[in-house]
């Protein structure tokens, strides 16, 4: 039994350790992930435990990192690479979209690689260390996208991601890394990709969300309920691609009012896909228009005062819920 609660970043470290221990074909590489343990310490102690051949530092070259991972994945290894920040992955997305994402379709050969990528705001990282890029990744055929909100989920989904035969983008919210903790059991099973989770039951509205916003939504739902304005379900999508459409549609059927929340940009954000899904397939179930609450189409600002206004939070979700319940 652990003596303390486990943070998200520690849970990820546990997931990686298990993978390295149980799967000799797993290798980890990226910038500063070796002895140093990574910019966020997600790989702390792993090189020490498993050696330089399994866990190693690379030069600063995201395209070569992705490319090498693709090469390794097609030759029997299971590479897990770390982006220091998801933002820098944009220098090399052609490797994900065109090489990794199309390989199985073209050749029938699988590409079991995982890209771990710290993302999101809330730590005053400014425009280039705070981006939420899941919408880009979700638009790529052949790629899967996972985005856990809780330590237990992160640990268990990471194992499924790494063991999946496809390229998986595994998004890790930087703000959550040390802001969310759970008691984690010593024995645990992987959680399959593509399964959403109801984090809080409710029948008057549902918040469709993921990542850091799950926690904000939970706070807002709690407040709404305390105020007697209604009960609000919070659905944590956990995997964005493949999306658990059944769970989304069931939630809509159970609540008839939908609020979509994410901290990525609004236009063409993943919330658009969710809204489209609901509009296409649950139109008749809606008592009110779907509502998206997202970051505006603005570079992520640095100053705390601006960043707070930029990111949705429990307060703005609360306000949006009241309006939605009042429709």
């Amino acid at each position, binding site marked *: 039994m652990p003596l303390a609660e486990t943070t998200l970043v520690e849970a990820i470290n546990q997931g990686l350790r298990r993978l390295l221990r149980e799967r000799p074909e797993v290798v980890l590489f990226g910038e500063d992930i070796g002895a140093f343990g990574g910019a966020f310490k997600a790989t702390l102690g792993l090189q020490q435990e498993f050696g330089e051949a399994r866990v190693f530092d690379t*030069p600063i070259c995201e395209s*070569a990192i992705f490319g090498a991972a693709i090469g390794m994945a097609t030759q029997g290894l299971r590479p897990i690479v770390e982006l220091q920040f998801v933002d820098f992955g944009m220098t090399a997305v052609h490797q994900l979209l065109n090489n990794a994402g199309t390989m199985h379709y*073209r050749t*029938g050969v699988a590409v079991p690689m995982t890209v771990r990528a710290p993302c999101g705001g809330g730590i005053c990282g400014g425009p280039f260390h705070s981006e939420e890029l899941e919408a880009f990744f979700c638009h790529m055929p052949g790629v899967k996208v996972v985005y856990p909100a809780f330590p237990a989920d992160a640990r268990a989904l990471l194992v499924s991601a790494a063991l*999946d035969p496809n390229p998986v983008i595994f998004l890790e919210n930087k703000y959550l890394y040390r802001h969310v903790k759970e008691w984690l059991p010593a024995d645990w099973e992987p959680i399959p990709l593509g399964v959403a989770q109801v984090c809080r039951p409710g029948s008057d509205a549902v918040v469709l969300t993921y990542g850091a916003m799950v926690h904000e939504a939970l706070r807002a739902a709690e407040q709404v309920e305390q105020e007697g304005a209604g009960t609000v379900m919070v659905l944590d999508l956990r995997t964005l691609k493949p999306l658990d459409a059944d769970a989304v549609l069931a939630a809509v059927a159970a609540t008839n009012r939908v609020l979509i929340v994410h901290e990525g940009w609004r236009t063409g954000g993943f919330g658009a896909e969710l809204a489209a899904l609901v509009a296409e397939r649950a139109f008749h179930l809606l008592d009110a228009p779907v509502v998206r609450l997202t970051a505006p189409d603005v570079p992520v600002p640095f100053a705390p005062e601006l960043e707070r206004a930029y990111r949705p939070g429990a307060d703005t979700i609360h306000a949006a819920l009241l309006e939605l319940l009042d429709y």
Partner: protein
Amino acid sequence: MSRKQTKATPPAAARSRSAQAALPGSTLLRCMLLTQLTEERLVRLYHQGRISGGVYISRGQEAIGAATAAAGGPDDLYAPLIRDMSVHIGRGEPVLDIFRHCLGRVTGPMKGRDGNVHYGCLARGVYPMISHLGAMLPVVTGAVMARRRQGRPAVGFAYLGDGATSTGDFHEAVNFAAVFDVPVIFVIENNQFAYSTPITRQFRCRNLADRAVGYGIEGLAADGNEAVDLYRLVRGLVDQLRARPRPVLLVCDTMRMRGHGAHDDFSYVPRDLLERFTARDPLDLARARVIADGALTAAEVARLEQVCQAEVDAACQQALAEPPPDPATLTEGVYAAG
């Protein structure tokens, strides 16, 4: 849901080490002839409107792929690019599969899902290129790293043109390979042009082999049109890299003697440059060489050409008769099944 790979037959050249060292020029000539004749036929099919998209051929550059493909062993990995049909053929791709592929047949190596120069066979260690120039270089680097961890003495062959050396991916991959001592031969085919752009607009160094020192690796400048000499050079290099793994830049001087694609009249190419290389046509050189070396007589060369032509004709006919993919399969296999 993973579709079955065509059963892989190791390339002839790879079957035995000692056979390789003594590889006769006639094997290289055969590979080059098959390449030239296949490409010629593909151009014809294109102009007849029987091939969709485009056709990009290697006329003038056949020696590089033939020599480097023959120089590799059974564990080695290849990432051929645009002008490397002779790599494919040299590594065992049947001409029939090339026709199937270019015609978009379901029987082809990519089942009609890709076409043109984008093919390969991973079971034979030949990576199908994506178009993004430079993008395959780190892939083959990583693949070689993986094989070597598995105890296989793999060497990689990564091909690119003069134009692709300007991409960021080229730089990242070569530096990555250098830092990790990955034995990859980066075969730069300097064919004087990138589409319409001459090399003077692409780089300012004297020879692209000069880039090697900046990576702390060896850079070799070779004649890309003399297949037998190139084979010997690369064969020796491969032995060295197996003994002491590290990347190498191998710059092969050559000339694209046709347009960028079958649609391109390459009127931008100066005639004197073309003439200079025409005088050193790699097929002419290879023919002369096998005769001079006593490997084949002129009559045997002529006979070889006939045999190759017959193989190409038969393959083309068969592929033409085969079916396209079924549109109902469009969405199958985007993901590998768990």
